[in-house]
């Protein structure tokens, strides 16, 4: 039974689970130093050069699980000693170069970086090479390979470089907190800070929802997660963990689609504002386009606001696939609506810290949103929902969306917009490949995820956005 994609995720999970377990038993302050030894019992090391380094790194992971460095505002942090200092040399010609006479590599290189030695073997001048990869793509022997660090390759917004001592380092002004590096680093040296302890504290201090009520807002991408059990069983588990009520974030998506349709028709052009990493990317890299970002809150924040209108004493904890949501929840405009963000990875650790066996739990229900709100979880869903919302409100405006799947496609679209070359009138920007189902906080990623989201969408009781909003007495101006 596959629980995670990689062992790095599993390691992070084990640390989180132990931290949560101690917190449940009120022994964390006394015992957190014991966790590294529990994870790496020794005497032989299994991951690093020696057991002492291995445990030192686990100790750093414990720190991240407990909230990380409080002085660093970024929710993504490098664990310096875990960084294996991968070689840094970009594209290199390997031994498979046959010294052919076609020299496609040289012809493909716009920068004149390729020359040949006396054996006709190709060489790349590192001072001229810009790592565009064109040479590699044309070599008939696949002899040219990229040796860009996995973290740097994962970070399409180019926020990652390395320090003099070769540790990875993050440019905080560029980082969008999307978590791509977290998921891609083969040594788990970059991690998202966990606020799981905050969530546990919120639940504990509610005193069984007597002092205030704690609501879980669950992202629709949950349909592609926890594959070995039913979504309904996860909902029951959330109640067992102490939540008062569990609500679909997709209902917030319905609200956003409804409002976004109006804003789009009024302004004539918009970029979506649901994906916090995309919004942060525009702010940092395309500041001139800032005004074109939809002024709507994200589905998470919109629903958090609505919950707090219906219950002023509510506490809202968002559970989803996204590390950037952790950053979004700290924003001035969102803070009052969302109290804490937990990823699916962290939820699994939380559930297991209580030894809850999901497979034997009864199936709870999760239903409020429409099909359109639910498919926000995958690329293209947001555009479909906005188009539907225009139709339902009888707004005479034709949306011509450009669906950008992944931050690279977003970048191309934004560059075009900046030069007034974009013919579409709506950019749906999702930083992760595939949309939210590709998020770094997911337990697993797979080709069937999109199908699972669509299936879950069709199961919604409400078939239109209007119905979904009507059923909860939502009014736009409140």
């Amino acid at each position, binding site marked *: 039974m596959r629980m995670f994609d990689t062992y790095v995720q599993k390691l992070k999970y084990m640390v989180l689970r132990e931290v949560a377990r101690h917190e449940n038993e009120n022994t964390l302050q006394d015992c957190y130093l014991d966790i590294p030894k529990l994870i790496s019992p020794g005497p032989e090391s299994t991951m690093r050069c020696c057991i002492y380094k291995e445990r030192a790194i686990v100790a750093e992971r414990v720190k991240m699980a407990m909230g990380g460095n409080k002085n660093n505002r970024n929710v993504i942090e490098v664990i310096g000693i875990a960084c294996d200092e991968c070689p840094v040399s970009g594209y290199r010609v390997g031994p498979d170069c046959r010294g052919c006479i076609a020299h496609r590599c040289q012809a493909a290189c716009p920068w004149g970086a390729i020359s040949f030695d006396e054996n006709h073997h190709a060489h790349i001048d590192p001072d001229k090479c810009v790592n565009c990869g064109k040479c590699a793509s044309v070599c008939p022997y696949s002899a040219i390979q990229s040796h860009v660090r996995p973290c740097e390759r994962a970070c399409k917004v180019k926020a990652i470089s390395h320090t003099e001592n070769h540790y990875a380092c993050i440019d905080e002004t560029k980082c969008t907190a999307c978590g791509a590096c977290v998921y891609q680093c083969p040594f788990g040296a970059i991690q998202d800070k966990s606020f799981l302890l905050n969530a546990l504290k919120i639940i504990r201090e509610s005193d069984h929802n007597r002092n205030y009520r704690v609501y879980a807002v669950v992202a629709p991408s949950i349909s592609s997660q926890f594959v070995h059990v039913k979504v309904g069983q996860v909902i029951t588990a959330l109640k067992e963990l102490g939540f*008062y009520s569990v609500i679909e974030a997709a209902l917030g998506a319905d609200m956003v689609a409804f409002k976004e349709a109006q804003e789009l028709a009024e302004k004539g052009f918009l970029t979506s504002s649901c994906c916090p990493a995309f919004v942060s990317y525009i702010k940092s890299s395309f500041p001139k386009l800032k005004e074109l970002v939809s002024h709507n809150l994200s589905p998470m924040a919109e629903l958090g606001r609505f919950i707090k209108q219906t219950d002023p004493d509510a506490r809202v904890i968002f559970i989803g696939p996204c590390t950037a949501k952790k950053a979004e929840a700290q924003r001035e405009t969102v803070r009052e609506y969302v109290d804490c963000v937990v990823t699916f990875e962290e939820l699994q650790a939380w559930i297991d810290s209580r030894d809850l066996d999901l497979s034997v739990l009864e199936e*709870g229900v999760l239903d409020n949103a429409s099909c359109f709100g639910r498919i926000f979880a995958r690329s293209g869903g947001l555009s479909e929902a906005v188009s539907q919302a225009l139709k339902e409100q009888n707004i005479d405006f034709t949306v011509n969306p450009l669906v950008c799947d992944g931050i690279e496609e977003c970048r191309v679209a934004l560059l075009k917009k900046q030069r007034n070359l974009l013919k579409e009138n709506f950019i749906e920007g999702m930083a992760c490949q595939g949309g939210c189902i590709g998020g770094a906080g997911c337990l697993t990623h797979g080709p069937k995820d999109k199908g699972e989201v669509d299936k879950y969408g069709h199961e919604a009781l409400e078939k239109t956005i209007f119905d979904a909003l009507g059923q909860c007495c939502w009014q736009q101006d409140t």
Partner: protein
Amino acid sequence: MKITVCIGSSCHLKGSRPIIETLQMLVKEHGLSDRVHLAGQFCMGNCQQGVCVTVDGEAFSLSPETARDFFENTVLPRL
């Protein structure tokens, strides 16, 4: 008067939407929009008795079929 209808997942599946629609329609028909405020609440903690509805804090259990009767015999006399 404040009528709150539970819109938690369980009550939603039992028909809170048709209840809200019926009540909204009746409130409008009777010209009571100024005096009756309809609102939703995510779960009232009594899912077995759903669909849960409160009138100024007092709890009732409804189904889509009993909504009209509830309005005529419980809501109207209290106004």
